[in-house]
């Protein structure tokens, strides 16, 4: 029935920041549906993706995470009306910043997984694990000092482009 499990030389550490209403519930659904996925992900629950400070992502990388996943409700479905839009805007700017300092953006994934999308959760987690496993250990950030950046209200073509890429 199940394919023989492959042993890998490197098991990446992945930290997921998810909102409680959509993605956490979606991950619960994957559980109740007994879907199987790699065990590399550790889930941190937030009320809303709007609560997720980019500093947490830096902190996760500093702490030795090889990949970070941020996932919340689909645009328009936010339990808190618009928290996920604030998150999207914040991370669009933050990605540019990370790219600027030389982080491979493939290590940082954003996704929308609803409470009904257990299958999508499995897909997202599996894909990210495979991708990060292929990239290997992430060491750069452990040495970087924590420094916070805050972008304020900006609305530029670059930002729009960054939105589209998510």
């Amino acid at each position, binding site marked *: 029935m*199940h394919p023989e*499990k492959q042993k890998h030389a490197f098991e990446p*550490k992945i*930290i997921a920041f998810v909102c*409680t*209403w*959509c993605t*956490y*519930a979606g*991950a*619960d659904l*994957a*559980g*109740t549906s*007994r*879907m*199987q*996925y790699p*065990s590399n992900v*550790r*889930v*941190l*629950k*937030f*009320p*809303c993706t*709007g*609560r*997720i*400070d*980019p*500093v*947490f992502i830096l*902190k*996760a990388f500093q*702490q*030795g*995470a090889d990949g970070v996943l941020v996932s919340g409700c689909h645009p*328009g*479905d*936010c*339990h*808190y*009306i*618009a*928290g996920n839009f*604030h*998150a999207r805007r*914040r991370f669009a700017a933050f990605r540019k910043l990370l790219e600027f300092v030389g982080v491979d953006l493939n290590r940082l994934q954003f996704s929308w997984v*609803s*409470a*009904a*999308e257990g299958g999508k959760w*499995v897909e997202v987690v599996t894909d990210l694990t495979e991708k990060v496993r292929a990239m290997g250990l992430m060491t750069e950030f452990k040495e970087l000092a924590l420094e916070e950046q*805050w972008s*304020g*209200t900006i609305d530029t073509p670059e930002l729009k482009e960054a939105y589209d890429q998510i």
Partner: protein
Amino acid sequence: MSRIGVFICHCGENISRTVDVERVAREVGQLPGVAFSTDYKYMCSDPGQNLLKKAIQEQKLSHVVVAACSPRMHERTFRKAVEAAGLNPFLCEMANIREHCSWVHEDKEEATVKAVEIVGMMVERVKKNRVLPTITVPVTKRALVIGGGIAGIQAALDIADCGHEVILVEREPSIGGHMAQLSETFPTLDCSQCIMTPKMVDVANHPKIKLYTWSEIERVEGYIGNFQVTIKRKARSVDEDKCTGCGVCMEKCPVRKIPNKFDCNLGMRPAIYVPFPQAVPNTPVIDRENCIKFKTGKCGLCQKVCGPGAVDYEQEDILIVEAVGAIVVATGFDLYTIDEKPKGSLIKGYGEFGHGKIPDVVDGMTFERLASASGPTGGKILRPSDGKEPKQIVFIQCIGSRAREKGISYCSKVCCMYTAKHTMLYHHKVHDGQAYVFFMDARTPGKSYDEFWRRSIEEEEAVYIRGMVSRLYQKGDKIVVMGSDIAVGVQVEIEADMVVLATAIQPQKGADTLAQKLGISYDKYNFYSEAHAKLRPVECATAGIYLAGACQGPKDIPDTVSQASAAAAKVMTLFSKDKLEREPIVARVKEAGCVGCFYCKKVCPYGAVEEKEIRDRQGNLIKVVAYVNPGVCGGCGTCQATCPSKSVELDGYTDEQIVAMIESL
């Protein structure tokens, strides 16, 4: 120094099968701050909870971590237990080692390592948890019911009979919904109108029910016990207070040939109309798209003939705001249509069955209107093309339902039963006719349902053919239906006069938009999601919002009525209290650090952030800081992530707690 107690649940074998719970308890027991750790077969059971309470008291525990199922399942259970043992409930956290671990991994070593890390993470988090006071809020004892079909009507009547005010909002000009369209109902063959219309009148006459028809929900704000709902009352062009329902306007209207949606476009109606004679309220509405007065400015006949002067062309849409404490969503279903392409479907509609091309291929609802005594044919079963009585009629089941290639993998639940009913109605009205049914499986769970289905075969002589139809085409005035009988293993060809398709049940169009306004979740088909499939089937995950009827999933009338009454009971439970305890997950401003930039105010989706002046004893202004109104705060935490000086904190999700979790990994 904290004395943390960790309790690992086996969940029968659900967790212990893939996670070595004893090892988890042992390893976690070594963590600094953990004073006690143990494992137990069923932590949520009575002995499990007692074990927890006893340990808190005997071991003098300061914090608790329960490693078991999802907090969405039992967080409340364990927090209550912790509270009973004398600890603040918010000093208890759950580590999800079932849904997020044991159920999704097979390798015991891997799952155990992950479980240890998950529990360790929660141990670090709980150390930073603070005592949170319970916040009480007042409850507005008025309910909003969205949708005036049988579900909404039942819920509204139940709540109103308990003495609470109800606001019933219906999108169409009349309440009644789909049930008012049906001819007879299974399994008793009661006339639908006879059991439905008295309830509609009850709603109209109930002193506690405020009925808004031809109205839609525009915006929903607030939270459990305290919602503000903006309702759009669409311009009816007829004053409801003045209109006596005499119907002269409808008789005189020169526009006559508009297909009536209520009659599945078989009957015609004027431009000023009530959808059906038993409509509640019996006040017409002007269809502005087809009215000559609105199109050209001429005519105005209805206004001239209206005795009470109720016709008002100047009427405009108005917005009204109502304060309610609970919301019942009962928006019902729609049928899968010919040109539709559901999400995930490879194919558009079901053109292969000729619907829309061959006039005598109709859907189940159209057949209901044909069979209804108040329908366009006065209850005679006549085919739409030439008005002849069909002598051979073919019913085809599962049109769209259980068809993954069409993006609908669920069973629509009612079609087997209503098709059995259709064959009976047909046989009662066309004595020399023959009904054939193509079906995959007959699904008849329900009281007296299977007996009813058997009766359609044994007494009403319907011929059931197990198999699907492969091809269907018009030949002269006949429709040739080709299919296979897989029970016998032969090809079947029937020359039918009429074909009835049992099309799939889908949520109402726009169900997702409404869900977004309400902040409730919905599945991939747009059916609304209940909080728990088994134990909380009528509540939404969003507190204070309840579900009734087919908007949550395909349902027949008895199930819909049961669910509506259950939703009403839930609303009444809520209304039995004057004050409501709410989770104290709210944002707080640390005034010393706040610089008054008010970025938090800009991002707050609830408008909970206010400006507060800080003055010295002489009354001189020192600075203006942000203040979060805890009654209004929804607890999303967007303000905290935005605050440049880190001066606002969301209780229960502080930076300290989150950083502690990250650092544990």
